[in-house]
């Protein structure tokens, strides 16, 4: 039987604010346990949570960037359950009236665009962190993360393969980082993903029973977990067994998903409006102001790069994957033109250096000006492309401008015709056999002469000039 996979994703993104969503405690990661907590975080009686305006505006940015409709009136609700990472006994979230709904983002799949629907985006608070004692029946609670602002982005079940799901996640991640509303750090949990996955016989309209997957902390793991889960469900169906609706945890080391030990009773959160938090009213003026603050988004930038710089879509994709990298690229092009050459140097050498040291472009020792100067020097014939390979290596190591490195290394290209003619004459004289063969029709030997000239000049000869002169002189 042929199956179709159906995937929907829920992403929790931590908002890049200085303070928590409902109080003035710091959101900084990694502080002394329980040092970023106040009576609001601790759920003390009589406290009043007050909404951080920036969280609303950040959420609005994401809503607009993902083509959602912002609800003119949205409000908070209490989601009731008992767990030690949640001191109040409820999480403040949005339920019936979320911030935004009915959006979509576009994916590029085999050169075609596919729409993935966004069901809703809502604001909520994060819970604390639990650590379990290995030897004793106790757990330890750190409430620094309690009340850290999150937005939850829920997709429609529109993805049809684990690759599509991974692609959607990457695009979503990219948008959040471009908007500068989330740092996107998956290891520290600033960007988390749960996945709903089911399979159904191809052609069937109704969805199959789904499993919810948790505990995947990288794009790769999301894809691996989904691939495993699809296989598991297919095996069950093919062997006449039933798929159970449940939550399953991804085990990275074993490469499998296991059912989560379920809590005793079924969840019944008894949501109700939080009386402490008044409704958020968003008017058109506010939306217009936020829309004006939106930066150019990745997809638009990509298309502009292809159009304006005439570079391949692949190059545009690599260069715009990181907003800072795109900015660097444009700075270089502004200074020296030659967009394709710049792209080659940035994607080839600069990114390779950075990747080797796991740095990002903001930490790149080669300034945009230096790279532009180097490319100009090649264009002017002052150095050859081959020499530039050594120069850029030193530029990265030392952070010096190319002119200094060229001077220090004595790398100036020989463009003096008279000097080169002398060198070439000597070489021709010393290679009578090769000359005879070349003139007899063995044109491949041209390369031999080029090599000899380069050797004699330690690679400093201007290659174009060498070619021209050799052609003339070998012809006799």
């Amino acid at each position, binding site marked *: 039987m042929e199956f179709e996979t159906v995937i929907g994703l829920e992403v929790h993104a931590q908002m890049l604010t200085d303070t928590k969503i409902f109080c003035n405690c710091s959101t900084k990661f990694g502080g002394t346990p329980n040092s970023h*907590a106040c009576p609001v975080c601790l759920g003390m009686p009589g406290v009043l949570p007050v909404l951080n305006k920036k969280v609303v505006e950040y959420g609005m940015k994401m809503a607009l960037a993902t083509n959602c409709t912002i609800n003119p009136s949205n409000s908070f609700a209490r989601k009731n359950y008992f767990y030690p990472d949640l001191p109040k006994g409820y999480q403040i979230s949005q339920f019936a009236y979320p911030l935004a709904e009915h959006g979509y983002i576009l994916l590029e799949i085999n050169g075609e665009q596919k729409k993935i629907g966004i069901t809703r985006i809502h604001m909520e608070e994060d819970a604390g962190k*639990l650590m379990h004692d290995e030897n004793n029946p106790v757990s330890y609670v*750190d409430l620094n993360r309690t009340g850290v602002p999150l937005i939850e982005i829920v997709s429609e079940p529109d993805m049809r393969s684990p690759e599509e799901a991974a692609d959607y996640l990457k695009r979503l991640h990219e948008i959040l980082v471009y908007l500068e509303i989330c740092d996107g750090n998956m290891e520290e949990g600033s960007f988390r993903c749960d996945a709903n996955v089911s399979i159904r016989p191809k052609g069937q309209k109704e969805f199959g029973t789904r499993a919810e997957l948790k505990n995947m902390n990288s794009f790769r793991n999301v894809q691996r977990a989904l691939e495993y889960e699809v296989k598991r469900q297919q095996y069950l169906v093919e062997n006449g067994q039933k798929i159970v609706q449940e939550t399953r945890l991804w085990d990275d080391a074993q490469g499998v998903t296991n059912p989560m030990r379920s809590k005793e009773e079924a969840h019944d959160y008894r949501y109700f409006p939080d009386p402490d938090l*008044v409704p958020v*009213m968003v008017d058109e003026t506010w939306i217009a102001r936020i829309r004006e603050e939106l930066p150019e988004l990745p997809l638009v930038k990509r298309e502009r790069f292809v159009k304006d710089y005439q570079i391949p879509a692949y190059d545009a994709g690599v260069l715009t994957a990181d907003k800072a990298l795109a900015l660097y690229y444009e700075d270089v092009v502004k200074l020296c033109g030659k967009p394709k050459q710049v792209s080659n140097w940035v994607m080839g050498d600069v990114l390779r250096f950075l990747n080797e040291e796991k740095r990002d472009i903001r930490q790149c020792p080669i300034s945009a000006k230096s790279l532009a100067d180097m490319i100009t020097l090649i264009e002017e014939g002052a150095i050859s492309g081959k020499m530039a390979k050594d120069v850029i290596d030193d530029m990265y190591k030392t952070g010096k401008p190319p002119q200094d490195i060229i001077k220090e290394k004595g790398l100036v290209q020989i463009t003096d015709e008279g000097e080169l003619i002398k060198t070439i004459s000597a070489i021709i004289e010393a290679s009578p056999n090769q000359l005879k063969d070349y003139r007899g029709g063995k044109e491949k030997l041209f390369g031999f002469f080029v090599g000899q000239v380069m050797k004699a000049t330690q690679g400093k000869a201007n290659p174009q000039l060498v070619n021209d002169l050799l052609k003339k002189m070998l012809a006799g």
Partner: protein
Amino acid sequence: MEGILKLTTQNVEYVAKLARLEVTNQEKEKFTAQLNDILLYIDKLNELDTTGVAPMSHAIAVTNAFREDKVAESLGTQRALANAPDARGEFFRVPKVID
């Protein structure tokens, strides 16, 4: 009475369990009766025609109460833990829970 939501002792047991409350059989009977009285009273509202009236979630007409994103001092670990029934080092300590 016709049309009125009627609570059973099972409903009371379920809600008590969700709220982690222990109730005796006697209390269960008592609360069931009391809650049904309340529902009966509230049911009076159903006599009004509310077609076209948006549901009300808050008793006051205030909207958009915001706070600026400025860090203020927290309690500090020691004071945060001061009222805890059990703590160790910099942490609250609770009976083991595993998801």
